[in-house]
């Protein structure tokens, strides 16, 4: 055990690692608490998780300035990590708030639910923070396993279970590719550490080595699956629709962001040297992703499915930033991911209020007339939709402006034009929601809304951020730009 004493092995900055440890601890606490019987309808699960997240956030925030590289460069604590850690923590926090009442309503047993939520958050953080393919892989698996279970959480329901099965099978399939890719990269570069890999790639005549190419390609495929980029997106609508709505909200924001975090680290950092050769490839994927996502969403009447497709499309937008590359590209991706997470969580969150008992399905027509009956809900949903569509003065607009601006600067004119036209197409189905909210009358009895204090808090929080980043984007912008400096 002298190993642990060896100082050069563990130059651990405990605050830098704080998030990881806090989450692990919280996870254990949650599980252990199950030993004490809870009184019916208690919210201790939620409370504990919120405390955990708060603690994690606090510790990371405290060490936000520091730049550390732990465990021989496997876990790096830099601006990038901080940004994403805080993002994931807030996503999780919002998800908890949304779930607070939802899990009670749908009789999901809380301890496991929140435990899994925390662990998948942990997985995401690892994906963003790790500078080594292995840890990325482990983090991804951690996140995914937890999500598989959460998607299938309401196992007595056919949809939920089917969704879990599809997500799981395809996910495992994808991680097979991912792993093979890692293996080949390891072979080609002799290391799994991204920094060393970058160094190696930089000073070797590249594009030539098939191992590297295939490896990078398969790695890309694995991550593309997680961010649901076309043609690896087909699980998305089904999984999103079948999953409990809160889970959908959580994964639509978190898993995607985590996938992109890893993608950014790999593509823009480790394989920066090859990135140039991949421009066309990524562009094609980006275009396909945007277009397929938006166009498929046009005819959806099931809101969750529609939003699922829209999330695919948004992945496409972020991919444009990835194609643009460089620090600008990365910061644009960060900016957009933050914005997207907030507005998307908001949108899905509103759906959690609408689910009728056990019927997860929410059709657009279920919203008929809600806008005037529940003004807050109406305004919120409308603004989220506008933001997703990129209409000012909302965060979504600023995100698109920055993102497309960066892409334009990188000379990706056709890509940008396709992108903006796509956003027009998307507005068509986002508007359908507002049409239902304000312009249609309910045919049957109106959908009832299950208000709950935590949900309202979450709603207001997302709403505030969506608007604030829409009118005053400066701080977030600076944050995003500063966060990528360490990365590239």
């Amino acid at each position, binding site marked *: 055990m002298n190993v642990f004493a060896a100082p050069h092995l563990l130059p651990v900055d405990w605050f830098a690692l704080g998030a990881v440890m806090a989450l692990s601890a919280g996870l254990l606490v949650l599980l252990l608490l199950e030993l004490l019987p809870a009184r019916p309808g208690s919210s201790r699960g939620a409370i504990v998780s919120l405390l955990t997240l708060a603690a994690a956030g606090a510790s990371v925030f405290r060490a936000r300035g520091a730049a550390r590289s732990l465990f021989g460069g496997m876990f790096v604590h830099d601006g990038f990590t901080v940004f994403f850690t805080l993002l994931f923590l807030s996503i999780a926090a919002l998800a908890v708030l949304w779930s607070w009442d939802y899990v009670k309503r749908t009789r999901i047993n809380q301890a496991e639910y929140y435990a899994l939520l925390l662990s998948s958050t942990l997985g995401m953080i690892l994906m963003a923070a790790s500078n080594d393919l292995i840890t990325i892989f482990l983090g991804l698996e951690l996140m995914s396993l937890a999500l598989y279970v959460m998607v299938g959480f309401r196992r007595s329901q056919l949809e939920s279970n089917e969704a879990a099965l599809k997500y799981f099978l395809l996910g495992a399939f994808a991680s097979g590719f991912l792993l093979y890719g890692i293996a080949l990269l390891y072979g080609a570069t*002799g290391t799994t550490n991204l920094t060393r890999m970058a160094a190696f790639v930089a000073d070797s005549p590249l594009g030539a080595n098939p191992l590297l190419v295939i490896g990078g390609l398969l790695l890309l495929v694995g991550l593309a699956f997680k961010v649901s980029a076309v043609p690896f997106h087909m699980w998305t609508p089904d999984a999103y629709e079948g999953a409990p709505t809160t889970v959908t909200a959580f994964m639509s924001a978190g898993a995607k962001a985590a996938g992109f975090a890893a993608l950014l680290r790999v593509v823009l950092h480790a394989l920066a040297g090859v990135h140039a050769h991949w421009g066309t490839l990524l562009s094609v994927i980006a275009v396909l992703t945007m277009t397929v996502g938006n166009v498929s969403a046009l005819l959806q009447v099931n809101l969750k499915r529609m939003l699922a497709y829209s999330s695919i499309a948004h992945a496409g937008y972020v991919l444009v930033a990835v194609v643009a590359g460089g620090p600008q590209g990365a910061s644009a991706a960060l900016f957009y991911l933050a914005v997207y997470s907030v507005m998307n969580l908001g949108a899905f969150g509103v759906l959690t209020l609408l689910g009728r008992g056990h019927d997860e399905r929410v059709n657009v027509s279920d919203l008929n007339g809600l806008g005037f009956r529940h003004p807050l809900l109406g305004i919120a949903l409308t603004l989220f939709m506008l933001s997703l569509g990129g209409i000012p003065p909302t965060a979504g607009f600023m995100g698109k402006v920055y993102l497309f601006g960066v892409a334009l600067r990188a000379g990706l004119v056709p890509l940008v034009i396709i992108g903006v036209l796509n956003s027009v197409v998307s507005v068509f189905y986002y508007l359908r929601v507002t049409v239902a909210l304000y312009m249609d009358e309910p045919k049957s009895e109106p959908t009832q809304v299950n208000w709950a204090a935590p949900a309202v808090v979450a709603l207001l929080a997302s709403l505030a951020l969506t608007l604030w980043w829409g009118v005053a984007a400066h701080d977030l912008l600076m944050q995003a730009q500063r966060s990528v400096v360490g990365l590239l």
Partner: protein
Amino acid sequence: MIPLSWSLTLSAVLFGIGIIGVLVRRNALVIFMSIELMLNAANLVFVAFSRALDSVDGQVFVFFVMTVAAAEVAVGLAIIVNLFRLRETVFVDEINLLKG
């Protein structure tokens, strides 16, 4: 000594068989097995390279992969069992409630 190319080719073939298995079978369990084949193909690559590069890391990776695989199998089988409970089938082409 065994040339690296042999092991790589072998792993490639194994990986391919895995993919094919996933694509052609309709029994969720068998599909899952094929996925395990793919993982093993990856492992083979790791081992081969750890040999070629004269570094132990590759083997350590294999160890992690196995752990992950075990975890996946546990969860996956649980899901499949649950599926069978609900649907009395493990055939993936009899399951499409969610589509369109």
